């Protein structure tokens, strides 16, 4: 098996796994972090330490972090929470069709609930043109949600510029940073970001834990989606999953220390991969070669995507986004970028990670080229 699907999820770093394990069993600090006895205090200290570590990675005060179950929940909490908290001021919201489903489906739900959403079209690389955003902002606009690194193509939005426009107009800016946390520099102390969604499992932490950063600014409030025991300033109740949170914190710290090396490593591998397949006739790059180097999305003429995926075995890669790859529909992200159904449908997302080696990429290149020639060999002439 050759795993090149790090954008879908990453394995937990073995050091992080050790951190988690130490908080699970009876011989570790397993207590409920809300308990007021010594054991509870020890758990609480692990949670506090994790908040410091994650805060350090993004230059946020630890108090500004809310723990969630993942980026899907963070996106929902940020978007629905902010929309509802500011509904008395206005009900207009802005996003793009190239966002992750956790964002697009949430905005679609808000449209059913009396909010109005402007869906800004990307250019052919998937990028937002700032002038478009400026034109879309209205008196009653309350929230803009535009991600950092796109999970399908790896393109990188200019969050600094987008945020600056939002600040100018007193509009909240939410960033889905699920794919960029720990991979690209992200300094919320200096960036004009109000809300930012994060998840541990894309950055060598555990699945089942995420976080939402909420800036300490006037007007930057959200309403909770769930109610209960009063944890986390009543914004997100439920027993804190201290082992997962500690694991997230540790993963964040590791990311802090090796982000630059990781980026260099990924860029080399990405160049090797693209170099190996770019000359296959009919292959095109979706997105931008200057995007985040951990993701390379390519379409190929005359080959059916699902068969391509199977023919690529034992290579593990994705068609469309991992999160909706059960559906057979061609990716909405790629269609929004102007690809035909046919092109979108043949798209393969290769995503590279810290453990990926040159041999893995070489094997992937060979498997990809072979699969294409095999499938082309058994396909009829294209219909007229």
């Amino acid at each position, binding site marked *: 098996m050759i795993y090149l699907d790090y954008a879908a999820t990453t394995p937990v770093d073995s050091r992080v796994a050790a951190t988690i394990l130490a908080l699970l069993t009876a011989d570790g600090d397993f207590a409920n972090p809300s308990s007021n006895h010594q054991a509870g205090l020890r758990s609480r200290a692990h949670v506090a330490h994790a908040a410091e570590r994650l805060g350090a990675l993004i230059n946020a005060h630890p108090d500004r972090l809310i723990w969630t179950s993942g980026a899907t929940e963070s996106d929902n909490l940020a978007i629905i929470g902010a929309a509802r908290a500011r509904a008395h001021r206005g009900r207009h919201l802005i996003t793009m069709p190239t966002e992750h489903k956790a964002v697009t489906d949430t905005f679609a739900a808000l449209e059913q609930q009396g909010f109005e959403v402007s869906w800004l079209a990307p250019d052919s690389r998937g990028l937002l043109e700032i002038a478009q955003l400026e034109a879309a902002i209205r008196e009653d606009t309350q929230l803009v949600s535009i991600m950092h690194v796109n999970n399908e193509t790896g393109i990188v939005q200019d969050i600094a510029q987008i945020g600056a426009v939002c600040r100018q107009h007193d509009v909240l800016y939410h960033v889905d940073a699920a794919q960029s946390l720990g991979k690209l520099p992200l300094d919320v102390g200096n960036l004009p970001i109000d809300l930012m969604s994060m998840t541990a499992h894309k950055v060598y932490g555990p699945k089942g834990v995420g976080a939402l950063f909420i800036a300490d600014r006037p007007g930057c409030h959200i309403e909770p989606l769930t109610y209960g025991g009063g944890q986390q300033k009543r914004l997100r109740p439920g027993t804190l999953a201290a082992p997962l949170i500690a694991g997230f914190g540790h993963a964040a710290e590791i990311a802090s220390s090796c982000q630059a090396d990781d980026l260099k490593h990924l860029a080399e591998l990405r160049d090797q991969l693209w170099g190996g397949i770019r000359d296959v006739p009919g292959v095109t790059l979706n997105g931008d070669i200057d995007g985040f180097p951990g993701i390379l999305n390519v379409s190929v003429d005359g080959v059916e995507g699902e*068969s391509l995926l199977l023919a690529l075995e034992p290579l593990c890669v994705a068609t469309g986004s991992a999160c909706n790859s059960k559906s057979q529909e061609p990716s909405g992200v790629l269609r929004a970028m102007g690809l035909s159904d046919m092109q979108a449908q043949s798209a393969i997302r290769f995503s590279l990670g810290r453990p990926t080696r040159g041999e893995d990429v070489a094997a992937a290149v060979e498997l990809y080229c072979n699969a294409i020639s095999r499938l082309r060999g*058994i*396909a009829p002439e294209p219909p007229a």
Partner: protein
Amino acid sequence: MTSEIYSARVRKLFGNPAHAGSLAGAHAARVDDQGVSVQFFADVADGRILELRFLAWGCPHVIAAAEALCAQYERRPVSELKSFEAGQLMQSLSVPVEKTGRILVIEDAARSLAEMLGKI
């Protein structure tokens, strides 16, 4: 939540489609529909199919089904191909229902080939 998308048989047929290819100068029938293209080629003698080949553009189930069909009807009388029905194939390959339309494209192509061969 079932954990397998493709049955072992589909994997085998898809991975080694012995009947993929065209036959020069043979009878051929093609259908393009449902985002799928299937073309069958047959060499016939004395009302019997001597060789049956296919070309296909589609998902693994489509390719596996085309291969299964060729393997089944080669060296059989043309009349048998005429009564081919997709239902049995769908079952033996555990094709998910939402792909029924695609397998019907194969039925279509097989029948129009059989009809053509019947007229020879």
